C-alpha cells in the first residue's frame, strides 16, 4: 500500500493503527511533516477511550478540551484519510516498504450523503442495551450483614435523596465502607458504583479502608491550632507510632485531624469517640492512650 523510498525524502505514506488520542496525534504530526497518512480505527468513530472520559490524570484537565481540536484538525487535514470500522488483516514487506491489507466493515450509512440529522438514532427501536445491570452477578453478603444493610436501605430508600442517609447509617455501623456492602447498595438502589464511590470518598467522615475502634480526632481548627494542637498531633503520632489518617495494627486507634469540633472555648481539644478532652497538654497524652488501651472501655470526660 505504501511505496518504499529514501528516508531523507518525505515521500510515500504512513499507516497509523488506532484512532485514539495517541493515534490521532501521531497522524497529525506525520501529516504536518508532509506525509500522507491513513488512520485506521476499528470503531465507527475515532476518539477512543479519551472521548468517554471527563478528566484526565494527573492534571485533571478536561478530556474533551484536549481532544476536540485534534478531531477537527484531522477531519480538515488534506493528507489524512480516516478509515473507520476498519481492521488490519495482514502486514507484508519490510521497514520502508510495507503492504498492508485492511478489512472494512459495512457502515450501512452512506457517509457522503448523511447530514448527521440523527433521525435514524431516534427511530431505531433497539436502545439502551449496553451492559444491563443484571449482567453483573448479584453481590452476596453474609446473612447478618445483609439483614443489617437491608434494614438501613429499607429505612431510607423511599425518601428523596436516599444515598447520604444510607451511607451515614452504614458508616455508623462499620466505621468504614466495606467494598461488597457498597456494591450491594449500588445494586439495590440502582445507583452506579462509581457514583457511590465518588460520594463516599468526598467526605472527611467517611472512609473506604477499615478504621480503628477509637478514632482520635485532633482538632485542627484555627483556635486549637494557634493554641498548639499541632504538637498534640505530633505527640499522638509519636506515641502510637502512626501518622495522621493511619490506624494502629491492633485496630484500636485511628488518628485523624479534624476541622473544628466547635469546642473553641476548650482549645486545644481532642475528641475520642464522644468524649472531648479540652485544654489538653502533651503531657496528658500517654495517660489517655493507656486508659483506652488498658480498659478498652469508655473514658471519662476530662476537666481542664
Amino acid at each position, binding site marked *: 500500500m505504501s511505496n518504499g523510498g529514501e528516508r531523507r525524502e518525505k515521500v510515500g505514506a504512513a499507516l497509523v493503527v488506532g484512532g485514539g488520542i495517541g493515534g490521532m496525534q501521531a497522524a497529525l504530526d506525520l501529516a504536518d511533516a508532509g506525509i500522507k497518512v491513513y488512520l485506521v480505527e476499528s470503531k465507527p468513530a475515532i476518539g477512543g477511550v479519551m472521548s468517554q472520559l471527563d478528566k484526565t490524570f494527573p492534571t485533571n484537565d478536561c478530556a474533551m478540551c484536549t481532544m476536540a481540536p485534534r478531531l477537527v484538525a484531522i477531519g480538515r487535514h488534506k493528507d489524512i484519510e480516516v478509515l473507520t470500522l476498519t481492521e488490519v488483516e495482514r502486514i507484508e514487506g519490510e521497514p520502508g516498504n510495507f503492504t498492508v491489507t485492511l478489512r472494512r466493515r459495512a457502515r450501512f450509512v452512506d457517509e457522503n450523503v448523511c447530514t448527521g440529522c440523527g433521525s435514524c438514532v431516534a427511530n431505531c427501536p433497539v436502545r439502551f442495551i449496553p451492559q444491563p445491570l443484571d449482567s453483573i452477578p448479584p453481590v452476596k453478603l453474609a446473612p447478618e450483614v445483609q439483614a443489617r444493610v437491608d434494614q438501613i436501605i429499607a429505612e431510607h430508600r423511599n425518601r428523596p435523596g436516599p444515598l447520604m442517609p444510607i451511607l451515614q447509617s452504614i458508616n455508623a455501623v462499620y466505621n468504614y465502607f466495606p467494598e461488597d456492602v457498597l456494591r450491594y447498595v449500588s445494586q439495590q438502589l440502582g445507583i452506579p458504583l462509581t457514583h457511590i464511590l465518588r*460520594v463516599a470518598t468526598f467526605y472527611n467522615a467517611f472512609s473506604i479502608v477499615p478504621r480503628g475502634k477509637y478514632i482520635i480526632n485532633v482538632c485542627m*481548627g484555627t483556635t486549637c491550632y494557634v493554641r*498548639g494542637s499541632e504538637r498534640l498531633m505530633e505527640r499522638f503520632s509519636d506515641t502510637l507510632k502512626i501518622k495522621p489518617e493511619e490506624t494502629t495494627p491492633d485496630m484500636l486507634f485511628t488518628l485523624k485531624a479534624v476541622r473544628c469540633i466547635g469546642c*473553641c472555648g476548650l482549645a486545644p481539644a481532642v475528641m475520642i469517640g464522644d468524649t472531648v478532652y479540652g485544654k489538653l497538654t502533651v503531657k496528658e497524652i500517654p495517660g489517655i492512650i493507656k486508659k483506652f488501651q488498658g480498659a478498652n472501655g469508655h473514658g471519662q*470526660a476530662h476537666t481542664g
Partner: protein
Amino acid sequence: MAARRIELMLCTGTGCVAGGAFRIKKVLEEEIARHGLQSEISIVPTGCNGFCGQGPLLVVMPEKIFYGWLKTEDIPFLVQEHFLKGRPVKKLMFTPPERKEPIPLLSDIPFFKKQMLIVLRNKGIIDPEKIDDYIARDGYAALEKVLTSMTPEEVIEEIIKSGLRGRGGAGFPTGIKWKVCRNEPKTPKYVICNCDEGDPGAYMDRSVLESDPHSVIEGQTIAAYAIGASHGYIYVRTEYPLAIKRMQKAIEQAREYGLLGENILGTGFSFDLEIREGSGAFVCGEETSLIHSIEGKSPEPRQRPPFPAQVGIWGCPTVINNVETLATVPVIINRGAEWFSKIGTETSKGTKIFSLVGKINNTGLIEVPMGITLREIIYEIGGGIPGNRKFKAVQTGGPSGGCIPASLIDLPIDYESLTQAGSMMGSGGMIVMDEDTCMVDVAKFFIQFTNDESCGKCTTCRDGSAALLEVLTRITDGEGQEGDIEFLEELAWAIKDASMCGLGTTLPNPVLTTIRYFREEYEAHIREKRCPAKVCKNLIAYWIDPQLCQACLICKRECPAEAIYGEKHIVHVIDQSKCTKCGTCLEVCPPRFGAVKKLSGEPVPPVERGMKVERKKKTATPLQEQSSA
C-alpha cells in the same frame, strides 16, 4: 408545678458538657436531695450560656449569680452555703484577671454587659428540650401573628424593611432572596436552614441549635409561609451530635403541638421539616454544594445563576438561610422592622454573634450590635489578652476571611468595613492572635485547610491552593526566595478571579491580608531566615540559659527525643542535632526558672557540657525568692 425559690440554670452546651456539666448536675442533684431541697430548687439544663471559657458554669436565678469553673468537689459546699443558707460563694464567682474582687452578678460581668441579645435572647434562660419554656418567652407568637394577620407579601416587605442580611457570611439581603423565590412560578418550593458551620473557630450556629432550637424552627416556618413552601430541611454538620439531637427533639415537640405539619394552628398552612446531616466537607456550606449533598450527588458547587432561589433542590425554587438569620426572623416580626433597623449601622442592621476565641481572656460567644469596634470586643468584652501579651491581629471570617491588624482596632464591625479591610464577616469567627502567633504560619494554616477542602472542580482553586501552599511552606521552612511574596500576590489574584464558588474566590484572603498588613514578617522569614513570633520550626532553636538553669531534671525527663543532657547540679544542655523542636522542655520548665528560651534568626550560643549550676549568693536567685515568698 410547685413554687420554687431557686432555679439553677446549668449550661449544657457542648463546651460545658465536655467540661463535665452532666457530672456536676448529678452531684448537684445528690446534694440538693441530701439537704431535702428538691421541692424548693430545680435544675434547668440550658443551652450554651456563651461564656465558654468559664465552663462548666451555672447561673442562679432569680438573683442571677454567676458561678464558673465548677468542679464536682465544690458542689457540696455551694449547695450548703448558697442554696441552703443563702450566702453566695465568692470563690466560685467570676474574677477578672486585673481585679481582686469577684463579680457576683451575671449582668455586671463585662463579658455580658456590652452584649445585646436578639438571636441569643433565650440562651441560658430556657431548657432547650422543653417547648413550653420557649413558648413562655413569646415563642411562636411571631408565627401566630404571621399566620393570622399578615399576607406572605407583607412578611417579605417587613423583612426587607428591617434590613436583615444573611448571617452566613456574604450578607445578601434576606427579604430580597425570599421575594425572588416567591416570584418563581414553579412549585413546590423549599426552605433550607444551613447549619453546615465549617469555619474553624466559629460555633454560633451550633450554639443556637443547642440552646434555642425552636427559634430556628419558628423562623424557618415563617420563611416557608412567606415564600410558599411546604417542606424544609435543616442541614447540620455531623460533628454536632448534640445539636442534631436537640433539634430532632424540638421538631418532634413542635409536630406534637401542631406547630409543624398539616394545618398549623388550624390556619390551613402546612409545613414540615427534616434534618439532614453533613459528613464533614467544608465546601458543603456553599449553597449549591449543600443542595447536591442533600440530593445525594457528589457535593461540588455549580455555577450561579440560576440561584437556588430560582432553581434549587430537586430543581425547585429554594431559599437557603443561615441559622442565625432564621433565628432573627421571629424577633423582627414580633418587634417590628422599624425597631430592628434602628440597631446597627447604615448598611448592616441588627446584631451579630461572634465566637471570640484564641488568645483572649474571656473566651465565648457574644452577640453585639453591628458597628461595635474591635477594641470594645477585645478589651471590654474579651477582657484583653492573657498574660498581658501584645494584641497582634484578629482573624475574622474563617478560611475565607483575613487578618485584621492591631492598627485597625477602632474599626467598626459591619459587612462593608470588614470587606474593605480585606477580610469578611463570614459566619462570625473571631480568632484573637497575640505576638506569639506567626502570620505566615497562620496563612499557611488556612491554605492547608482550603487546599484540603477544595472539591477539585476548578483548576485555579485546586492547583492554585496547592501552589500557594508550596510557596508558603517553603517560606516557613526558611527556604523562601526573593520574589516569593510577589508571586503569592499574583497567584492569589488569579485564584480570586478564576474560581467559581465562594470557597475559591475567597481562599486567598488570608494570604493577601497577611501580606498587606504583615509584609515585614514575610520578609524576615525570606531574607533573615527569622521567624519573629518564634513559631516556624525550621527557623527556631530551643536553648537552655545556663545562668537560669537549676538542673531540676524535669525537662530532661520529659524530652521525648532524649535530646537533653544533664544531671543533678549540672546545667542541662539541648543537643540541637537531636532536638525535634516539640517545645515540651519550654512547657515543663518551672515558670520560676524560665530557663528554656526560643531563639530565632541568631546562632545558638554554645554551652559547655558539665557546667555546675550557679546559685549566686549575693543576689537571691529566683528560686529562693519564690520559696521564701
